[in-house]
């Protein structure tokens, strides 16, 4: 039987209250959102907070709305809500593609966008998808707010730009015209962590790639990004050959580790194939073909 160590429990009633509780209870206190990463870690005693600050009451952070040329997702938006959102599907097909592969439907009822990002698991899928989309996150603290690009948000495994006393409150995703996106994951069984995943965002100017975003997860890509592969595409024709080459470059530059999910060369082969396929699908979607 897995039982967390003892901790004190506080229920936050607002964002400001949560931030005040973090300050009051000190650096050993932790925020719990959906809890589907943190509670298992507490059961295994890998996490041992002195105080757990529950933000599930902050329903004002559960929203998806369009503001100007951005879609904004509140940090407490559940995975299931993202998966079902018509607004998200219309602008960023990569997100439902990715969401469909995250854990299982019951876990997705509970897990949140903000929690997934803040957990910063190196195999997490939304981190790669939001990196491909060049999203920003909004972090609130006692003094105000700051906006951090997702590509600068992850400082390493399980480490983010969110300092103690701060709360991630929102993700902002830019809406781009003539753009398509796609995500694909290889997993050993339904609901497992990725062996490797890739997500691509392609903005077209005619038949030329105006901008490309490529996110990778579980393969040691810095900030979940395949930057060199993106560079190879920008300003060049959107051709099958270019996408194959981008896959090859992404595979070469990522840094997977051998583990029970497979050896390094296998994971590199997956990266090459998944990058190529998602670039093709993203481009087809940008052209309105898929």
């Amino acid at each position: 039987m897995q039982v967390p160590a003892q901790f004190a429990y506080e229920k936050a009633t607002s964002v400001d209250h949560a931030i005040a509780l973090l300050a009051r209870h000190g650096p050993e206190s932790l925020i719990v959102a959906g809890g589907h990463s943190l509670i298992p870690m507490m059961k295994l005693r890998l996490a041992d907070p002195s105080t757990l600050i529950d933000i599930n009451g902050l329903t004002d952070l559960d929203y998806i709305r369009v503001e100007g040329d951005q879609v904004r997702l509140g940090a407490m938006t559940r995975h299931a809500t993202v998966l079902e959102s018509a607004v998200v599907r219309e602008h960023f097909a990569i997100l439902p593609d990715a969401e469909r592969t995250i854990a299982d439907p019951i876990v997705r009822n509970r897990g949140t966008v903000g929690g997934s990002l803040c957990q910063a698991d190196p195999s997490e899928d939304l981190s790669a998808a939001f990196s491909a989309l060049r999203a920003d996150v909004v972090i609130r603290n006692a003094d105000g707010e700051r906006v951090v690009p997702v590509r600068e948000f992850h400082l390493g495994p399980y480490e983010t730009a969110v300092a103690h006393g701060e709360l991630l409150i929102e993700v902002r995703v830019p809406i781009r015209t003539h753009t398509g996106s796609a995500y694909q994951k290889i997993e050993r069984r339904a609901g497992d962590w990725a062996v490797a995943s890739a997500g691509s965002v392609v903005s077209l100017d005619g038949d030329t790639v105006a901008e490309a975003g490529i996110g990778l997860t579980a393969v040691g890509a810095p900030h979940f990004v395949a930057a060199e592969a993106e560079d190879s595409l920008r300003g060049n024709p959107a051709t099958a050959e270019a996408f194959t080459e981008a896959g090859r470059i992404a595979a070469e530059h990522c840094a997977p580790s051998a583990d029970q999910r497979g050896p390094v060369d296998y994971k590199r082969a997956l990266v090459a194939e998944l990058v190529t396929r998602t670039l093709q699908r993203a481009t087809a979607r940008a052209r309105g073909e898929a």
Partner: protein
Amino acid sequence: MEITIRVNGEQVVRDVEPRLLLTHFLRDELRLTGTHWGCDTTNCGACVVRLDGVPVKSCTVLAVMADGAAVDTVEGLAHGAELDPLQEGFVTCHGLQCGFCTPGMLMTGRALLDRDPDPSPQTIREAISGQVCRCTGYENIVRSVRWAAEKEASKEEVTP
């Protein structure tokens, strides 16, 4: 910490440790042992209950997180002596053998039918994809949910 939860329509108040998991709260504090405690790792789905109507794995929710909420368990499915159509479906279509996964399957299946009264076999398979059954190969569970969907549709037709 004192918590108040509406369990199967009835308000319960208990003083619990913050670290008590919802599944153990239901089973050990309330003796509602229909909710099963399976893998303990958010994988198997034997512990699925509805939290404010939404299916969740109760081994990964703290009882204190359910404070102020409504929790529905398999014990609340039947209406007195009358089984829920989904329970009838499991009986009729052999949706279980050992029965260990059944409470979770029923709670997820009921939530699915409440949202989507006519789910396709594929939709049912997706809905239960976070739950493990080692007896039926899932086929009979899918049939059981379909059986309930059809029974409920036919009931609605005859009631004006």
